[in-house]
């Protein structure tokens, strides 16, 4: 009996460490490759900044910050999408910050403080996702341009949020101390070896937790091959990141360089 339990634990440990490593590897390598070879290395022949583009570098940085933090461009055209989109991104970001407590030791004060509102934040995140989903479905024009992939990402993140919210409750909560110890070992790249010699720390065997983690891994793996690349891609968008000073400063077409 004991042997069988150990066997299951071993399989779970291997699965969890496997998907975490695989997901991180695909995500980091895929993201960096796309950014470096796809966007950074591809030349932009001409200056195509777009109104209201500032004429100084600091101005451009401010404009981009406005786009990144407050979705300024999006806010110009559509109110519902702007609010739902911004709430979604902001609460998602807060939840990621909150999850750092499983990866750092000791846990900084602001992350602990965030814990008080975590359930509210996650619920808001879920509401925003539902709004985005319904809008995509109901709005005829957006529906027309949507494909399976667009719904898939929303459903995937909904799955992550829903399982995460459930994990918050006592009934489903895994052994967090044990789980964190396992994670920290993962970060030190020790786990594969420790698993072999039956180290005392194990991944939580809670099926809901494993679902949650698997969905996150799937999202990370999907990320570099999908529209989610807008996250890094925005910073390379020539209509936004070029300074509006073509007459003052000569822009050299990269094609013409050696």
């Amino acid at each position: 009996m004991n042997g069988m339990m150990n066997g299951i634990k071993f399989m779970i440990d291997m699965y969890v460490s496997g998907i975490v490593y695989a997901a991180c590897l695909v995500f980091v390598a895929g993201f960096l490759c796309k950014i470096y070879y796809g966007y950074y290395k591809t030349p932009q022949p001409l200056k195509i900044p777009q109104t209201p583009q500032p004429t100084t570098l600091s101005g451009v940085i401010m404009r981009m910050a406005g786009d990144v933090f407050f979705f300024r461009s999006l806010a110009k055209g559509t109110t519902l999408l702007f609010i739902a989109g911004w709430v979604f991104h902001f609460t998602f970001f807060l939840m990621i910050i909150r999850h750092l407590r499983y990866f750092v030791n000791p846990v900084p004060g602001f992350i602990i403080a965030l814990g008080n509102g975590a359930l509210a934040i996650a619920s808001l995140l879920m509401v925003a996702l539902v709004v985005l989903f319904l809008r995509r479905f109901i709005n005829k024009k957006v529906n027309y341009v949507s494909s399976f992939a667009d719904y898939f990402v929303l459903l995937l993140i909904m799955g992550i949020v829903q399982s995460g919210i459930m994990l918050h409750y006592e009934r489903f909560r895994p052994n967090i101390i044990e789980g964190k110890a396992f994670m920290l070992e993962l970060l030190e790249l020790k786990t594969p070896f420790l698993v072999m010699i039956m180290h005392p720390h194990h991944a939580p065997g809670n099926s809901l937790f494993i679902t949650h983690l698997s969905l996150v891994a799937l999202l990370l793996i999907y990320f570099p091959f999908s529209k989610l690349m807008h996250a890094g891609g925005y910073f390379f968008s020539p209509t936004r990141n070029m300074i509006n000073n073509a007459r003052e400063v000569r822009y050299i077409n990269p094609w013409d360089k050696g």
Partner: protein
Amino acid sequence: MTKEKTAEEQCNEACEANERIQEQLKFSKIKVKAVKLTGEINIPELNPKSMLSVKPQLLTAKEMLEHLGYPAGGLVPNWKEVFLRKMDEMLKKYRSVKLYMDICVKCGACVDKCHYYLGTGDPLNMPVARQELMRKVYRRYFTLPGKLFGSRFVNGSDLSEELLVMWYTYFYQCSECRRCSVFCPYGIDTAEITMAAREILNSVGIVQKYLHEIIFKAQVIGNNLGMQQNAIVNALEFVQDELQEETGLDIKVPIDVEGAEVLFVTPSADFFASPHIESLYGYAKVFHQAGISWTMSTHASEGGNFGLFIHNYEHMKKINKRIWEAARALKVKRVVGGECGHMWRVLSSYSNTMWGPFDYLDQKYKRPQHICELTNDLLNRGALKIDKSANEEFIVTMHDSCQVARGMELGGMPNGQFEIPRAVIRGVCEKFVEMPADTIKERTFCCGAGQGLLGDDMMATRVKGAMPRMQAYHYAKRESGVNFVALICAICKAQLSKMFPEYGVAMEEVGGIHQLVGRAIVLGAKESV
């Protein structure tokens, strides 16, 4: 024997494909009626395929096609190969194209922003749907999942003749005005995608007539209208005679004068088309009264640069080159551009990259300068005497032309392209009223015929695409009694002066800003500067 036969068969297949394409792309005259003006811009319901039958004429003149380096015999036999090779080149040479293929999340912020969508309700005129025509090919042939699992898996498109037809139809219903891009959270610029798509179509032998005929004329003859040098000289002499007769003063419209301070470039339509020519009178009066020696050039007799409208750097560079050759040859100190939208974008944003640095010009001034910058400067310094009562009859509004409004700064200020032309209008007119805020400045609506869609064969898109601007003008007219729209673009002038009557408004209500300046300027001996 068998080898020969297959070659023949292949040829037959290719010829048949070409015939099928030519048949499907055949131009047919479509009459559309302008909607009734209410002053409201309503967002239409989806009306699929309503614009599918609208196709511009194809260029068939062998000489022109050969000169431009495009296939002269219609669709090339191995078109799929050529298509993908060209698309690959576009993706590798233009970060804009590559990035914008990748990062669209289809949020839908742009779906109701395009004037062609608003005018037609055709879903493929929604910017994101237009981009998807290319993105489907991108996903199928240029992403790993698409290569591995095919078009079904990635929601892509295999290359087909049907796809070519869709591309030709809808990438020639985009006027590259960049309005959608203003509202896009990532600044995705449909214009960049349309330009690339048109060049890809060109490479397989599907070449639109109006646009490419003009590129040819601008390169070979020197201007979009194909006027020979003596014709230009005659036209300008006529303008000069008219001016002198009207004013009784020795106002010059100089041509090819070496050593002049200013080389003035403007669209060749300004030489005789109406209402363009009225602005030419205005420019001449400004230069005359300010005492600035200026000249036009027969070599650089065109400001416009249709090379911008397709992703073909060489075409654009060749056309632009004439201006800088003329500037050097005539030993001028400044280059000033007249009223033209895309001309100004190429001249201001791209010239420096293509033919700079301009260290041989006067460093005190922006290089090049816009005529509105020059006039505004003169007005501010009090160097021009103005009698606003000459424009008393007008209540003026301003239509921001897309390539100026969403392109470069004017006067070194980020929003100078809005403020400076308005300052000039206010400087010469008593009454100025804005159109609704959603239709001006960075959110301005295209006139409906920009970037290669001004041909008579495009009347259907022109009438429908002009709807938002016409509604906004009607609103200003109804609410504030506006009776003149001033603008700074030759294409807008040509389009709106044709569309106004279509929508039941007098065509005289369209004109350039310098038409107003020309009327208000008090000529004669200067009191002081």
